[in-house]
């Protein structure tokens, strides 16, 4: 019954989305208030019903109901509970339902809480949101029903791809999805405001929390995804420029640009058309991303659920939404473009440069990601890898960091160059110290890492400058947010630079008892032993790493073997062992057994890396997210709203 109930709820929710859309359009055309009164409750109900349907799907996975096809294909009765639950969204159909749930719930939130917008803009926004949902409802109900039953229930499921059996990955897709969906809400706001021609500070302030919120989740998703790829795939890298990584980076870049331009619109009522355009671009990029991942157009480390029919469907949806929004923009842009003037050398000016750089990087990453497809259509098979991206994105990112140094120090509207220089000496000094230190003592360091670490020093100090001479307790939260986020960029940049400049590596075939040195560690290979996990067996190595000061640490890299399910061959995964020290991480991978000349397997392949400051990369990502979260808290004005409500209640009591 549960599966049928879930499907029924989805149909009702889709009907409600239809109702919201029709009533919303009718209201915008006729202005009849009773139509508007329909849209809000319908949006809320749609969100709640979709969420209940999603909970029902999770219930089916938790109960291991093998009469449901999706459960059979993606779960197994012996799986640990966390992965049974995560199995609900670790596949195409489930992740689409998750997407719709988040989309519906955010529509409900907008309907309940949004008070800053004019009523007609709000209704138009909700109608746009309903139109987005409808496309995905159609996708889910017509081409990928998650509740589909099997005629005969098999005794057990096929399990989840063992590579995905990892707590980090269980939460990774939802995080990214919340980010994507937040952007789609920003898109709906842009469409709504275009329809009613209300583009100004009020609209920007209403949109900003959604941009900030989605960007927080995208940041967390990318950071966590990078860390997952780093420790789970066992290859030791933190960014592969894989298409699937790129398609999460592209909306992030668009979101970063949007975040900054929406601030200009909110505080200065400038860059109005550009902000709207960026909202459309950002949403398009998250659609393009979904399309690339879902259609299997590109080869990738992580792509799953590949089906040409689904690709075509998504492509059609994409054309309707993006094409529609761009057409609307073309008709209305003239009406909204005029905004407040500003000088080139001003906070606005630097934010415009920031936006140009971010969108250029975005375009270059997109180009690199799509180029192989175009080349293949012309008969050449080509792969575009890290060298391309490092070459094009690296220098631009460094220039972007320089803008980040000066931007926050400029005042709004107009500033003068001499004053700017007087604010910079400490930061420039810091950068000089880093540069000379690296040149004198760093040995042979590549140009990009060298510049990266130098700019990191500059940004690190300069990002703190806005706090200088302020009363720290009275400094508004958004300022704190900016400072922390920019400092996070410096931390991540320092990590990337140090890791690529000073990495140390050893690759050996070691016999038990043998000692290998890497960087300052001497690592003794104590041997291997077999172990048994909940649904796998493994060979686990024991390594004892000793530092020059005599402290020693034990690491257990392992190679896991998952039994083949449904008659398939067994799957192996590699579990790297990590030792985190203040100065970096020791990363150990256990490879295959090596057979000697006499036929005995007594050596094992071992790969050891010393990665200086590598964890700063993810620390930086976390700081960026924390900064954005503080900014969001400051902007949400929850405290003010609460105070105002209390004051009103007190008044009512006396009246």
């Amino acid at each position, binding site marked *: 019954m549960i599966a049928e109930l879930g499907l029924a709820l989805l149909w009702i929710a889709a009907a409600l989305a239809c109702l919201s859309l029709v009533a919303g359009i009718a209201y915008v055309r006729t202005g009849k208030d009773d139509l508007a009164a329909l849209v809000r409750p319908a949006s809320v109900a749609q969100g709640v019903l979709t969420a209940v349907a999603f909970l029902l799907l999770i219930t089916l996975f938790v109960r291991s109901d093998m009469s449901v096809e999706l459960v059979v294909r993606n779960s197994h009765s012996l799986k640990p509970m966390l992965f049974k639950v995560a199995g609900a969204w670790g596949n195409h159909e489930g992740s689409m339902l998750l997407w719709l749930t988040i989309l519906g719930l955010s529509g409900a939130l907008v309907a309940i809480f949004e008070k800053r917008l004019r009523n007609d803009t709000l209704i138009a926004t909700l109608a746009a949101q309903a139109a987005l949902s409808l496309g995905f409802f159609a996708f889910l109900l017509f081409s990928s029903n998650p509740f589909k039953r099997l005629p005969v229930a098999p005794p057990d499921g096929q399990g989840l791809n063992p590579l995905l059996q990892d707590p980090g990955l269980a939460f990774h897709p939802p995080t990214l999805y919340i980010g994507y969906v937040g952007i789609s809400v920003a898109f709906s706001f842009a469409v709504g405001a275009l329809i009613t021609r209300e583009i100004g500070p009020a609209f920007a302030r209403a949109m900003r929390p959604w941009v900030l919120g989605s960007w927080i989740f995208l940041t967390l998703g990318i950071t966590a995804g990078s860390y997952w790829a780093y420790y789970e795939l066992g290859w030791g890298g933190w960014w592969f420029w894989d298409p699937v990584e790129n398609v999460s980076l592209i909306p992030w870049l668009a979101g970063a640009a949007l975040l900054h331009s929406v601030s200009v619109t909110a505080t200065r009522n400038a860059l109005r058309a550009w902000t709207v355009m960026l909202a459309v671009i950002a949403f398009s990029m998250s659609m393009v991303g979904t399309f690339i991942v879902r259609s299997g157009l590109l080869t990738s480390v992580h792509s799953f659920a590949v089906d040409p029919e689904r690709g075509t469907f998504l492509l059609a949806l994409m054309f309707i939404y993006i094409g529609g929004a761009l057409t609307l923009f073309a008709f209305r842009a003239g009406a909204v473009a005029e905004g407040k003037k500003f000088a080139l050398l001003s906070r606005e000016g630097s934010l415009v440069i920031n936006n140009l750089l971010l969108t250029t990087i975005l375009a270059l990453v997109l180009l690199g990601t799509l180029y192989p497809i175009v080349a293949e259509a012309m008969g050449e098979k*080509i792969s575009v890898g890290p060298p391309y991206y490092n070459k094009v994105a690296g220098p631009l990112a460094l220039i972007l960091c320089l803008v980040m140094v000066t931007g926050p120090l400029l005042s709004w509207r107009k500033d003068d160059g001499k004053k700017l220089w007087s604010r910079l000496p400490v930061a420039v000094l810091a950068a000089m110290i880093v540069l000379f230190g690296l040149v004198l003592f760093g040995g042979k360091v590549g140009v990009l890492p060298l510049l990266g670490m130098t700019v990191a020093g500059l940004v690190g100090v300069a990002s703190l400058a806005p706090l200088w001479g302020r009363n720290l307790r009275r400094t508004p939260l958004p300022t704190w947010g900016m400072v922390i986020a920019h400092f996070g960029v410096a931390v991540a940049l320092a990590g990337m630079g140090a890791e690529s400049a000073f990495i140390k590596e050893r690759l050996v075939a070691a016999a038990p008892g043998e000692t290998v040195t890497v960087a300052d560690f001497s690592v003794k290979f104590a041997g291997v032993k077999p172990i048994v996990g909940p649904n796998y067996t493994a060979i686990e190595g024991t390594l004892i790493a000793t530092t020059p000061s005599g402290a020693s640490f034990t690491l257990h890299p392992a190679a896991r073997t998952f039994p083949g399910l449904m008659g398939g061959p067994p799957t192996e995964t590699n579990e790297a062992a990590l030792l985190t020290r203040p100065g970096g991480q020791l990363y150990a991978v256990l490879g295959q057994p090596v057979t000697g000349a006499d036929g005995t397997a007594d050596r094992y392949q071992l790969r050891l890396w010393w990665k200086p400051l590598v964890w700063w990369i993810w620390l930086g990502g976390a700081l960026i997210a924390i900064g954005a979260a503080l900014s969001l808290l400051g902007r949400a004005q929850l405290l003010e709203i609460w105070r105002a409500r209390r004051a009103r209640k007190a008044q009512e009591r006396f009246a």
Partner: protein
Amino acid sequence: MKAKHQRLILALVALGGVAGAGVLAASALRDEAAYFRTPAEVKAGKAEVGEAMRLGGMVAAGSIKRQSDGVTIRFTATDGKASIPVQFTGIVPDLFAENAGMVADGRLRADGVFVADRILAKHDERYMPPQMGEMPKNMKLVPGE
């Protein structure tokens, strides 16, 4: 400065930036994009010695030989029409095996051996080669270094 002039300057800066980025991208793509070749194409002389490229094919049965250092392997990559010897130093990805698909990033050496600096293996147990001539588009890759 008049608003009109300022907008013109901004537009020119943006235009210059975009043009610069375009040139940068074009040159980087020309230098850094690696061709994806099959053993037959390499044998047909489509690959230059020393040029970065990707080689895709199946690992021939019985061809994996480990060298005495324990970390270097040699195997034969084949597409059913031609075979290329491949040498790789490192730990192969979990799904690298004989009779399975693989992609190698590396360069062709003058003696005809393909020296790989990274091996990617097909990550799907249901994989069956449809035509040996070309690797399927939808393969998932797992890096190994």
